[in-house]
């Protein structure tokens, strides 16, 4: 199995006629996605690689039924409205690709999603992939490249970096370890779904036997994960990779993603590593150590 998406998951793309969204449409269709429609206001009647374009989510729902999910790929100033539109039309899984959205607006999206019982992945992310099942987002790029990097198997991957998700999957694949589902959770200070919030889904997925995470300075997400693991006596061994160790000495400077900044002690990699290790999470020094650490931890667990 996988989490969130399967071969049968239907979704739409909001902002489908944009340059990046057109590429996303092609790549996802080639990987087998069931994209039932796209939205760009004023473009009803057109199509993108055969996917019909509508003016609103409501029109798609009326024509084809409510889709399971939506990828939102619209400019930052229109993103909140697009996400609200998806939520108010009953869509329960929303991948927000757009970056540079002020966190006040992200908080509003998340709050409404919680009220509607829906889940947001992102913003500023590449989405979700369950190898050989489906992909929803830009993970891995063109389908051929995606198949080269991602293979089916026992490892769940969660990452604050979209690109590093592919690097890790590719490293796992080369070592003969496939992936159950990989989630690019987004690089912003506030994201729809954190590591700890993904854990129950992976816990419930019988295919997933271990977790690999990519992590960075900034925020409390690793502390939250460490607490979750301790409180729930998780069956899943976790191996983490921590990037940006040089930032510990560079307080107040922002690198990489919007959420990647060291403001207080809790933002530093050293503190995060300490917390994770105390919760039994193995921390790899290099990406290439992840497969062996996972194998070792899976053997111990079984």
């Amino acid at each position, binding site marked *: 199995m996988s989490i969130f998406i399967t071969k049968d998951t239907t979704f739409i793309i909001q902002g489908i006629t944009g340059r990046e969204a057109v590429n996303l449409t092609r790549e996802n269709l080639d990987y087998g996605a069931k994209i039932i429609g796209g939205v760009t206001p004023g473009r009803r009647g057109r199509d993108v690689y055969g996917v019909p374009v509508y003016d609103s989510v409501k029109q798609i729902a009326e024509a084809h039924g409510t889709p399971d999910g939506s990828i939102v790929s619209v400019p930052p100033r229109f993103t909140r409205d697009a996400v609200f539109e998806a939520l108010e039309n009953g869509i329960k899984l929303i991948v927000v690709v757009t970056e540079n959205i002020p966190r*006040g607006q992200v908080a509003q999206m998340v709050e409404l999603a919680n009220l509607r019982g829906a889940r947001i992945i992102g913003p500023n992310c590449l989405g979700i992939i369950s190898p050989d099942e489906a992909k929803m987002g830009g993970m891995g790029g063109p389908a051929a490249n995606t198949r080269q990097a991602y293979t089916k198997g026992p490892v769940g991957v969660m990452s604050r*970096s979209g690109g590093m998700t592919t690097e890790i999957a590719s490293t796992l694949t080369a070592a003969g370890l496939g992936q159950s589902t990989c989630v690019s959770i987004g690089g912003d200070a506030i994201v729809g779904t954190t590591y700890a919030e993904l854990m129950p889904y992976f816990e419930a997925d019988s295919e997933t036997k271990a977790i690999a995470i990519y992590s960075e300075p900034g925020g*409390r997400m690793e502390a939250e994960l460490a607490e979750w693991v301790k409180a729930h006596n998780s069956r899943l061994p976790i191996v983490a990779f921590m*990037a940006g160790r040089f930032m510990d000495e560079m307080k107040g400077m922002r690198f990489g993603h919007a959420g990647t900044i060291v403001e207080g002690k809790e933002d530093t990699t050293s503190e995060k590593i300490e917390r994770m290790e105390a919760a039994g999470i193995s921390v790899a020094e290099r990406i*290439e150590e992840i497969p062996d650490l996972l194998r070792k931890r899976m053997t111990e667990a079984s």
Partner: protein
Amino acid sequence: MRFYEYESKALFRRHGMPLGEGQIVNSTAEARAAAEAIGGPIVVKSQVLSGGRMKAGAVQFADTPDEAAAKYDFVLPIEVGGETARSVLVEAKSPVAHEYFVSVTWDGRRKLPVLLFSDMGGIDIEEVAETHPEHLSRTHFSTILPLSERIAKEAISSVGVSGGDLNRLVPIVYRLMQVFLQYDLTLAEINPVAKLEDGSFIVLDGHVDMEAEARGDHKKLLAELGIGEDETRQARPPTEFELEGARLNAVDHRGVAGNVVEFDGNLGLIIGAGGGSLTLFDAVRKHGGKPANYCEIGGNPSVGKACNLTKLILGKPGVEKIAVMMNVVSNTRVDIVARGVIKGCLEAGKDPSKVITIFRIPGAWEDEGFKILEKYGVEYCDRSVSMYEAAGRAVAKL
């Protein structure tokens, strides 16, 4: 993006929050004139972005205009966290009866704004949280329900403040919450809000941080406060090299080849993307390498952008060689980056095979990219060589 105290106060004043009389001054004569106009005891405060002003001696008190002028000269050269005064704020010194703390920030775990309030203001709030937790309240509030004074009332009353003080504090705290949401702030803090001996309340010191992503939405406010578009307001001001990097990245809208941060090593880095750059920078340092810069490539930049970035880095004094490395890419075309980097080397009068230590960008269009690199004799590798190993090869060539 942090505001100076005087800018924060200007913002508070526009929203009807009570402030003492004060003036921003830029010369000894202006300091004396401001003190004369205010009359009575004076506070002279250096305007810096770093905390710890009081400890550094950059806040001084004066009783006469002459003394205020002397204190202006005194605080002006004092370094606070490596930073000297941008200008100096001369304010009336108010007779304080009690100090309160109020702050609004984001809680990334709850994904909501949180209002912090304490009746032990004027001191380090972390210390209050540790030693007197019952004197600090944390109240989360919704971003989709209409903002209401109820939240402020709950926050203030839950540390035991009641009576007239509660009713005078509510509007100040409520307005701070409004300002926080309206201007996309990541922090809005007043420490302290002071109750004066006459029973009135004023904002004595405060500061705000605005989210960089929201600057475009608040251009009018920023212009009115005199905050320049080129002011990054990071922990340190941008260097010439960094400003040039930002300028080159802005020449067209295709992808990113920028976010340059200057370091003082000899190995120029052309690296990406967001997470990949962090990983590779660590790897270079772990191998004992000395990066000349940090940067990020991503989102499929044009040949011209990659070329400009390469020239910028090769032109930096002290740079001997460069390394071109990324994680496995999804939407950046390897051949386009390869062409850009080689063009940059040639335009800078360098032999790509000598100056590029390693090219490690696996992913879409890699075969086309590798062909180009081969033609120019550049060492490259695919994903079978890890990011760490590639960084090691680069460092070994210096």
